[in-house]
């Protein structure tokens, strides 16, 4: 951080004006629906995890846990953004 490499203030201002505006990876209007879907899926998978048999080599349990965690991760972030805590 510190003084700019090649730009000064007027150049930064021009750059800010000329570049295309920021657009998120996922459109913000969809976030509530994505949150709902992902969190329902996480809940369902967690329930399914609890019904799985206890194998010696827990391949199924691991797979279900991993997918549920991944979906839950994105679902919680989408949930935070939906309620107004923009993380």
């Amino acid at each position, binding site marked *: 951080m510190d003084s700019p490499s090649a730009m000064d203030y007027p150049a930064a201002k021009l750059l800010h004006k000329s570049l295309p*505006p*920021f657009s998120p990876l996922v459109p913000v209007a969809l976030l509530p629906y994505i949150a709902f879907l992902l969190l329902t899926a996480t809940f369902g998978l967690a329930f399914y995890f609890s019904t799985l048999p206890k194998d010696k080599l827990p391949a199924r349990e691991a797979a279900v*846990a991993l997918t549920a965690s991944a979906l839950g991760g994105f679902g919680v*972030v989408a949930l*935070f953004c939906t309620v107004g805590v923009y993380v």
Partner: protein
Amino acid sequence: MAARWLVLLCLLSQSLVFAAHSFENTAIVRTVELGGSLVHVTTTYAVKSLEAGSQKYVIALGEKEGKSTSYLEAKLKGQNDALVVEGHALDPKDGAYHYTVGLPKPLAVNATVNLVLDTVQTHVTYPWPEQASQKEEQSLKYESDLFVLSPYKTATQRIKIRAPSPRIISHTTPEIPDNFATDSIATKSGATVTYGPFTNIPASANADFIGQHQKHVVVHYLYEYPVVEVTTLERTAEISHWGANLNIENSLNLHNAGPKLKGQFSRLDHQSQMFYNRLAPHVLPALTLHLPPGVHSTYFYDLNGNVSTSRFRPAPSVPKASQSNQYSLLELRPRYPLMGGWNYSFTFGWDSPLADSAAYDKNTGKYIVGVPVQTHVAGSIVDEAKIKIIFPEGATDIEIFPPFAPLSQELSTHITYLDTTGRPAVTFKYENLTDKHVGTIYVTYKVPLLAHLQKPKAVAIALLSLFTFAFASRRVDYRLTKS
């Protein structure tokens, strides 16, 4: 290239042997616009060059004047581009602050040019009488040195002090020695007090002139609006990429710098004044703020909790960096009206779509965001300001472009919801911000795609640990008896 030059104030403290070329001032006219806490001064120098190729003109401000000047800009008359100004430390020998202005083109002998210097002075007015009851008027005194100093000779000089209304209670008429004075020394007409014209003033930016000839003037005038001072302002701008949102939160300590309240606060008097819509001029019942268009979800709270006496009138979003004059209106009414000398601390903030303030360069992967320095309360002065810009987690290659040099800037780490490594944050410190200090701070940074996934990953790992615990716990026998 019609570039807009920045006003550079780099303080060089070596003793000054001016590489300044010779000039002569044919006329200097200074107009002082009195306000509440801010005083706007415009000085026009009609300059004649005495040497060929002269390009550096030196402006001098007296000691008290230089200390109270918090904004300085020099331009050629009729042009919009600010000239490069270099400030020098106070010269103890001369007792004046010197500023070297670089003229755009070197001047030939006897060429003339008109230079306009805009300055804003802060903390130069004070309420007089110092106490006023709830029903009395508010009057302020403005004190200043009379003559405009200059290291060059001045043929004629005139100072006009303009009050906001024609109700000027008094103004001093100093005694001017005969060699400077013409027939009129001080004349008041309407809302303007004109001192001068004064003729044949020698080079005045030195201790001799200041000691022998400099005069002191005081203008006592009635002021019809509350004098607002923001003692501290803390602004926090948080950038969120997942929510595509820019949240700006301000914590202010508001101070009414008018005459202190004499006697007790009478609710009865206050209510009757409000009913007839005739509040005393030094009472501040509400604040009206102009926020950028497109903001939503404003909030206003203080130490006690949410303050519901506010009204937000939104304006639709405009494209990023557009020059439109649109603004949203936020009317804040503190829990109590601010009488003279009273303080009120509160926090207000809003969310705005990130697309209104940020841009993205696909080729370099750089994001650039513009954050306004302050939301100016009309006519106020901000004594101390701290602006903190919080970047998304994992931001790298941070570059900052403040519109005017801060007192200090530092990098820190800010930790908030769902953060693991914390977010980089830059804090700027400013002092004495006026209505001219309403620029935008531009910051650029890069966030790799993997850094965007840091938050979902953190939550996923937390959930995975829960699943691991469940996995282990399923295989433990919790039965109390073995049967």
